[in-house]
Structure formats: C-alpha cells, structure tokens
C-alpha cells in the first residue's frame, strides 16, 4: 500500500478514534508484532485501539470501504500466530473494551466485553458462588474475546466443556460493520447455530464485541490426587482406568520426566523427581462425592502400579500441586533459549504409542522435548526446546512439530485441540482435510467475508480459487 493510502486510512480512522489510539509509528507498534508464538511476527500498517463498540464499527466500515485487511487481537496470549498483524492491514486491538457489562446471578450469566480477562470474570462473580468454567493456563491474562476466537479449553474442560459449551450469545459485527446478536439468553437459537460457527473461527468471520457467558456454581470442594509412575505406559493405562471406572474428573493431567523436573525446580510443588510420569487428577463436587471419588481414584492409581501417591490436604496444598502444572510452560522455558509448544489431540488409548514416537523423534532431531498433557481429553502439549537464534534449530523444531501433528492425525486425532490453526498450522490443514473439505471451509468463509479481509492468511487455507480475489502478499499464500 502506498504511503498516501496509509495516510488516508489514518486520517479516516482518526475521525472516530483519539489520535493516540491509532498507532502509526513502527516503534510503538512493536508490542503488537506477534502473539505468544513469537516466531511469527510482522508489523501492520497501523494499530487501532477502539474504546467503544461504536468505534469498532467505524474501524470496520472504513476498512471495508477501503478494502483493507483487518486482524483482531485480544491480549496476545494466543499460541498459533492467529493475531500476527497483516503487513497491509489494520491490527484491531480490543483490549480497551474491558468492561463487565452485567451479571445475572439467578440466571447464572454475565455479559462482558471481549477485552475482559478470563480470570476477571470468575473473580467478579465469585461473590455469588459462581465461576466461568474454561480455564486456559493463560487465564490471568488471556481475554474472553480471544477465548471465543480460539474455542479455548483448559485443564477443566473434560468435565465442564470448552468455550463453545459455556457461552450463550455474542454481539458481532460483520466485515461490513453491520451489528447483530447471535445465540440467545436461552439454550439455543432459531436458524443455523452461528454460535457454533463463530466459536473457534479465529477472527475470520466477524468481530465479537460482547459475549454472554454461562456461569457454573463453585463446587463445594475440590481435591487433587497426584500419582507418580515408573513408565509413561503405566500412567497412560491409569488414565484409561479412571475414565472407564465411571469417574469424570474435573481435571486429569499428565507430565513426563523433563516437565516434572522443570516444574519442580520452578514451583517446588513436591512432585516426585524420580517418576517417569505423573498424573494430577482433580475431583470436585459435594464433600461426600469428593471423599468417595478421591478414595476410588487413589485405589485405582495404586492398583495400576503408582510409585508414589499424594492427596491434597487443603486448598493451599491443592493450589501448590496445580502451580507446578500451570507454570510448566515457563518452567520448561528456562531449560533452553526457546520452546515451541505443540497442541495435537489423540485418542486416549494412543498416549503411550505417541509419547514413545515423540521420544524417538526427539533423538532424531537432537532436540529435547518435555510433554505436558491434558490426559483426560487426549490433548498433547509437547514442548520442543530449541534456540531461535540458530536457523537450523528453528527449521528442525518446525519439522519436528509438524511430524508430531501428522502423527496425531494418523492415530485418529487432530492437529490442534485448543490453540487454533492461525498462521502456524495452515500448511498442515491438508493433512487433516481433503481438498473438498477445505473448499467447503473456504465457502463458509466467503459466505461471511467475500473479499477475504478478515484475518487473511490464517485458519483456513484459501486454495486455488484465491486468484479470483485480491491477491494476498506472497508470504500468506499457502500452495
């Protein structure tokens, strides 16, 4: 885009936004160059920071009129490069829309703006004995708008579901800036289920300006059973035993040796350093139910050959046991200059096989890998350790990651469980979908955004038909 066009865009946006909220200079744009997957970065034409829904609508209208690409961004904690700016577009940061609009304790809902952090919702409703279910590890920082875009999960989604199960309604703006409300205050809505389509759509179909979330009653009590195992296989079998034993744990997490050691160094949570794998199993509910399930789980783990067993004694102890898990990413991050977090989901029964394969790949590429794993729902997070300043290491890490995700598809799983496709996994989409399936996804995109201006180059690969539309910059083409 020529400089004159950038000036025109800036002038138009500053008619509606404070001059400070339209960032043009490159140095001030730096904080927006990437999300939490830092290997993919770029600078936008400009960054827009609207403070009201009306301003968001004006930004959309201006971009629509000038045919300018637009990338929405929340807190920037995403892990797939989904919020990486478009070099010819506007980066729309929604962080200033951070108001909790309304809480309805009786109907157990809250209306919130997209920039509100995930944890802030639970904190705001705690006084009513309620909380918001999905809890990604980044919940202190990540925004609810971003959670909707990625259909975020967390450690508790086996029992309480993903974002798609925990939101009732969305106010959205179409690419042309038209406002509509989808979903309802009830449990379904007339016509097609656009809530299902928008949740996890990675900012490709519209911009979310308000979310009505469903709230859950805070459980009376929650307790964690932690067990160490001498092999990954034994831990994997124990996961299956819990599930088929008729218990749905609130969370069921696995970590392998490298992850255990890193987390223990970081958090001193009392993890068994000598174990090949640990399981953290949280059960919640009424006092009686939790007592019953804790003893069932402990007995199951013992019968499956646990080498150590710890049961949380109080809330402080439970928090400490989780602290190790929740800080596993940064803890592993201290072991190497950089780490690359993968996100495949596999059938639970394939855990041992896949972890053994990953171990062999780790030797092949000579890159260490730590595995942190939502074992209850089969969502793997291998963390590949590498040095981003070494181009060879970067290449190896990317190849290693791709092979893990292709393996996930081969065993009946998928390339992403909760982090999204973004720019990162775009080239892997054909390993999960046929050409006809990809074209069907592309047709859905066209139904909402015919000019392909919303988050171009992410989420869904645009196949050969893209020539019919405005050409994308070379680095965003996917064939």
């Amino acid at each position, binding site marked *: 885009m020529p400089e004159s066009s950038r000036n025109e865009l800036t002038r138009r946006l500053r008619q509606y936004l404070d001059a400070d909220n339209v960032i043009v200079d490159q140095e001030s744009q730096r904080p927006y160059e990437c999300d939490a997957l830092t290997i993919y970065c770029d600078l936008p034409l400009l960054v827009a920071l609207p403070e009201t829904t009306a301003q968001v609508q004006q930004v959309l209208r201006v971009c629509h009129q000038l045919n300018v690409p637009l990338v929405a961004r929340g807190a920037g904690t995403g892990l797939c490069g989904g919020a990486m700016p478009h070099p010819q577009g506007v980066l729309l940061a929604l962080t200033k829309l951070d108001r909790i609009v309304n809480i309805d*304790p*009786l*109907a*157990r809902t809250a209306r919130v703006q997209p920039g509100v952090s995930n944890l802030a919702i639970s904190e705001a409703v705690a006084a*009513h*004995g309620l909380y918001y279910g999905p809890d990604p590890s980044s919940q202190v920082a990540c925004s609810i708008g971003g959670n909707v875009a990625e*259909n975020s999960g967390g450690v508790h*989604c086996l029992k309480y579901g993903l974002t798609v199960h925990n939101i009732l309604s969305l106010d959205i703006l*179409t690419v042309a800036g038209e406002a*509509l409300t989808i979903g*309802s*205050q*009830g*449990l*379904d*809505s*007339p*016509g*097609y*289920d*656009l809530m*299902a*389509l928008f949740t*996890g759509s990675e900012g490709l179909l519209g911009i979310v300006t308000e979310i009505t979330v469903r709230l859950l*009653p805070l459980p009376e009590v929650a307790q964690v059973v932690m067990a160490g195992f001498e092999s990954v296989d034994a831990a994997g079998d124990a996961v299956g035993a819990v*599930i*088929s034993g*008729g218990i*749905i744990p609130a969370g069921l997490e696995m970590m392998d040796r490298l992850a255990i050691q890193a987390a223990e160094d970081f958090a001193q949570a009392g993890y068994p350093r000598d174990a090949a794998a640990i399981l953290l199993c949280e059960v919640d*509910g*009424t*006092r*009686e*139910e939790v*007592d019953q*399930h804790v003893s069932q789980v402990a007995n199951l783990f013992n019968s499956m050959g646990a080498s150590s067993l710890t049961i949380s004694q109080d809330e402080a102890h439970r928090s400490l046991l989780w602290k190790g898990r929740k800080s596993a990413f940064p803890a592993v991050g201290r072991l190497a200059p950089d780490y690359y977090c993968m996100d495949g*989901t*596999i*059938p639970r029964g394939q855990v041992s096989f896949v972890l053994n394969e990953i171990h062999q790949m780790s030797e092949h590429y000579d890159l260490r890998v730590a595995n942190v794993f939502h074992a209850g*729902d*089969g969502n793997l997070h291998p963390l590949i350790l590498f040095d981003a300043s070494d181009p060879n290491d970067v290449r190896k890490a990317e190849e290693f990651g791709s092979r893990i995700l292709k393996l996930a598809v081969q065993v*009946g*799983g*998928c390339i992403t469980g909760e*982090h*999204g*496709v973004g720019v990162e*996994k775009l080239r892997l*989409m054909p390993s999960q*979908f*046929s050409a*006809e*399936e990809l074209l*069907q*996804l592309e*047709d*859905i995109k*066209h139904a*909402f955004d015919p000019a392909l201006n919303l988050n171009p180059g992410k989420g*869904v690969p645009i196949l050969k038909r893209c020539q019919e539309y405005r050409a994308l910059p070379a680095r965003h083409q996917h064939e």
Partner: protein
Amino acid sequence: MSEEPKPAGLDDSKAIVTSLMQAREEARPVYITAGGSKRHIAGRDCDSDTLDVSLHRGIVDYQPQELVITARAGTPLTELIAALQEHNQMLPFEPPLFGGKATLGGTLACNLSGPARPFRGSIRDAVLGVQLINGKCELLNFGGKVMKNVAGYDVSRLQAGALGTLGVISEISLKLLPQPEKTLSLRYEMTAGDAIECMNRRAGEPKPLSGAFWLNGDLTLRLSGAASAVESTAAQWGGDILDAADNTWENLRDMTLPYFANDEPLWRFSVNPAATLSTATDSSLIDWGGAQRWLRGEYPLQELQQAAASAGGHVTLFRGGDRAAEVRSPLSGTEQHLQQQLKRAFDPDGILNPGRLYSWL
C-alpha cells in the same frame, strides 16, 4: 464383561450419494427421512420427494475407554443406548426416543435433547464430529473422534438444528458419559412463578441436579450422581421422594405425558431460564430448569414471538397448527442474509430439505 455388541449395520452412503446426484441433476429437491418420527414436528412441512437413509445404520466404532461412539445417521437411538448400557455409559443429552423410531441423524438435525439438557448439555454439545454429504454430493468429514478439535470451522455442531438443510448427515461421533450411580426425584407443590425462582436457585448450587420441571402446580427436581452426593442433597432439600418406578422423566423426554396428548398447536419457547413469560404461564409445562417452556393452544404468532423476545429467546410452533407458514421466530435482515449465504455455501442448488427451516432457506 460381555463381548462388544456388533449390531446389524450397513454402510449405505454410496447409494445415498448416488440418489442425491440424480436428484441434483434433475433439479429435484429431496426431503431426508429415516425413522419418520419428526416428519411433522420441529420444522415446516416439506413436500419434496423423500430420500430415505434408514438403511444407513449401525455402530461404526465404540471405545468405552475413550467415552466416544461413532454411528451412522440412520441408527435408532434405542440401538445406541442398548450398546452403551453394556458398559454403564449413556448419551448425556437424554434424547426423546419417540417409541423407538428416533434415529441419531434426525436427533442431531432437530437438535433434540431431553430434561438433562441444561445440566449435561445438548446433542449439539456432545457432537465431536460428523460425516456429511453436502448439496454438491461430496462426502465430507469434519471434527473427529477426540474430545478437542479446533481445526477448521465447527461444521459438526453447525448441523444441530439445521434440519438437514446443509447436508445429509451420514455419521456422527459423540462424547459419552458414565451412567450415574444413583438417581432420585423430589417433588414440591408450588406456583409456576415460585418454581422458576426455585429451579434457578437450585441450579446455582453445586449439587448433582439433572432435571427440573414444573407442571400443574408441581415442581419436580431430579438428582443424579455419586450415591453419597444424591442422598445428602435430597436430605438437605427435602420434598416428597418419587417412587423409583415412576416414569415421569421418560414420559417428559418422549413427550408422552398427558400434557402432550392432543392435537392443539404446541409451542416451544426457548428463553432465559429466570424470565417471566407474559403468555399463559399456568397452562405451560416448564422444563430445562426454566429454559424450555411448552404451551398448547391457538395463539397469534406475533404475540408469542414478542413474548419470547422479551424473555430473551425465541418460539417455535413445534407441532400442529399451520405448518406451511413460518414456524420459527423471525431473524434480522442481516442474519437472514448470512444464513442464506451459508445455505448456499453448502447447498448451492437448494436441493436439501428446502423450506423446512424457514420458507426462504
């Protein structure tokens, strides 16, 4: 434990694709059917030639340890439930069985779930993946057989409530739940208004509530879960305990309660569970902890639509009445346009169940 059940099944998808290709070539729209239990409910009547998918049935894969089952769309729900029973598992969404005729595909297409829906989720919530034949006669797979999958748009859940207008559903993978150890129902005499307040307050407590409905002056609550939790909650909440042999919940699920037994138009409101609905509350059946309310009788459509809208939801003429007219709350112009675009993305020639959802879709 017994052998894995191997019920009779047949992959008839090729024949379905062939029939659909022929229909498309001849520009002859089809009405998709299997058990026939939903022919005249949930949507507008559709007079296209039928595309019968009832032969396409059977369980494709069932892994109790994974809590996942995959079955063909024409599989009767009763067959699924019997297979799950062997492993003490269940469909979380408690679907209506309609005398054994209801099939899995039709249940997803109509997004039908029973009394447990607010507490264990709907069929839409349980769906992990679908195989689908779109209006271009392409056999496509979306989602999968794992608990979490965010690659691509959620085409699987989009089928819920689409009434077959986006594709012929071929196979469905679902998340399952273990059966609860114990179930117990409590009954209280109270007005509809008090019942709505009570249902919502109870749902806000961390107790194993799995059903809450009101009819004819009685609120009935159901508890399901660990025996210890069910018993202690029942002791705290009081109320009259229903006989274990009582089949009220099954009759509510299958719409076989006397309330449903006449030919009057039957309206379904889906609203804010705590809302007061301005229309005839005392003659309603209130289910889903307040979020689903049934109303019988002749009413002006617009009046009901306004009542539903002010209660934060929508209304459907679920059964009876004029089924050639619109049976659902209207959509805004912007949303109507998006829904039409979406329909075109799946079914460019408009051959799949045209007019079943809305006259313009």
